[in-house]
């Protein structure tokens, strides 16, 4: 592990020296407050989007199996259109066309909603896959024990689906954090937008972006550690 880290750092160090780049990270210090605010904004947008996208994902996953064809087709169309188009296009489309048409002025709320719409389509597929992975016999056991539909969901479906989709959900949360950087195009002052603004002030693009990359990594790496913990906690085969 240590060797791999040394190898990576060494490779970048040599690359930087080869192009004779002199990095001075002290130039970032005067902008620490702005970076901190940007970091906080990214964190807030990501957490907000995680909550909303989980809700959208859950609704879309359930309605994809809905017996009312109209609702099912809306859900299917949503998932396919969102998954089939780039986030950048969606941000422009929803913010400048839909948002303007319907009077959505707050770019932060708009940002969270757009990001949630995007991630929700992926989460819907994760949840749907999780639900489909539950063997039919599990429902038969629940039925044979006289459990109601609600009890079956609470004691069987939910814990089993959760344990099976948790790794994929954590991965999606990492994606939300990284994808939030694209909201800079509608001037949401999150981490990436902050970096662009600071770069315009201090002209130290390399230092700024390397630092901001490190901050993003810090966030996603924390999610990854948390996910591993939760995975172990909910992986029943490993539980002793």
């Amino acid at each position, binding site marked *: 592990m240590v060797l791999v880290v040394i190898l990576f750092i060494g490779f970048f160090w040599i690359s930087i020296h080869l192009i004779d780049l002199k990095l001075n990270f002290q130039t970032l210090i005067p902008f620490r407050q702005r970076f901190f605010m940007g970091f906080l904004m990214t964190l807030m947008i990501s957490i907000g989007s995680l909550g909303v996208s989980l809700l959208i994902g859950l609704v879309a996953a359930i309605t994809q199996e809905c017996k009312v064809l109209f609702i099912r087709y809306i859900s299917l169309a949503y998932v396919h259109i969102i998954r089939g188009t780039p986030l950048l296009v969606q941000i422009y489309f929803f913010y400048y066309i839909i948002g303007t048409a319907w009077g959505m002025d707050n770019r932060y709320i708009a940002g969270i909603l757009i990001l949630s719409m995007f991630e929700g389509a992926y989460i819907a597929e994760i949840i749907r896959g999780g639900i489909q992975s539950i*063997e039919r*016999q*599990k429902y*038969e*056991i629940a*039925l*044979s*024990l*006289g*459990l*109601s*539909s609600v*009890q079956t969901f609470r*004691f*069987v479906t939910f*814990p*089993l689906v959760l*344990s099976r989709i948790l790794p994929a959900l954590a991965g999606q949360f990492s994606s939300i954090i990284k994808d939030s950087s694209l909201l800079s195009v509608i001037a949401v002052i999150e981490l990436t937008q902050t970096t662009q603004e600071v770069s315009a002030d201090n002209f130290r693009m390399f230092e700024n972006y390397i630092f901001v990359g490190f901050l993003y990594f810090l966030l996603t790496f924390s999610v990854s550690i948390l996910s591993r913990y939760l995975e172990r906690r909910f992986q*029943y*085969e490993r*539980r*002793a």
Partner: protein
Amino acid sequence: MNVELKSVSKYFDSQIALNDITFQDEINSVAIIGPSGGGKSTFLRLLGGLIQPSSGEIFLNDLQLQYDRQSLQSYHKKIGFVFQSDGLFEHMTAIENVMLPLVQTFHMPSKQAFSIAISLFDKFGLEDQRNKYPHQMSGGQKQRVAIARAVSIKPTLLLLDEPTSALDPEYTAQVLDMLGELQKEGLKTMIVTHEMGFARHACEKILFLSNHEIVEYGLSEQMFQQPKTLALQSFLDLVLEWKI
């Protein structure tokens, strides 16, 4: 326990599983035997209210089986069902599995459910398995816990769908011993099995299902000694060929 089926048929898509079954008897212990694909499991699952017949009616103690969720729920309060394998919930310990129907279906206080579960674990020699998850137990232990769960609700009829088919001979004996004990205590059972020794000696009657129909039904000993049909004769010749 009076079990009655009136012209019951079951199709899966266009595939026939049971064809126009009519049956009525007072059940004590019945073994359902027959070649694979003959409709044994379908017969049992229909009786267990796990699937709905394509046509016909089923009665237990003269009460017709209805298929709305609420009627099914009250029906399942009276019927125990043991699956072939993987009948426990993998995310619950053995004792949680047993307590689940007691607490959730019968609304029993946890303390009472716990003491019922404990006494069953003690009775069936499962004391050490209480807090284990299914993946930590052997196949035989899992099946015994599943049976303990099924009998914990004091069912009027216990249905078992090939409970030993996925087990080693040693574990099979453990499970069959446990079942024999329960039958002696007066528990009414219907079991789909390939264990001919158990069917013959531990069950009062045999129901032979082949080609989606009941071919023969009668007292165990009689059916083993004097099969009336060629189909049962050939089946017994085949399954007993390599028995000691």
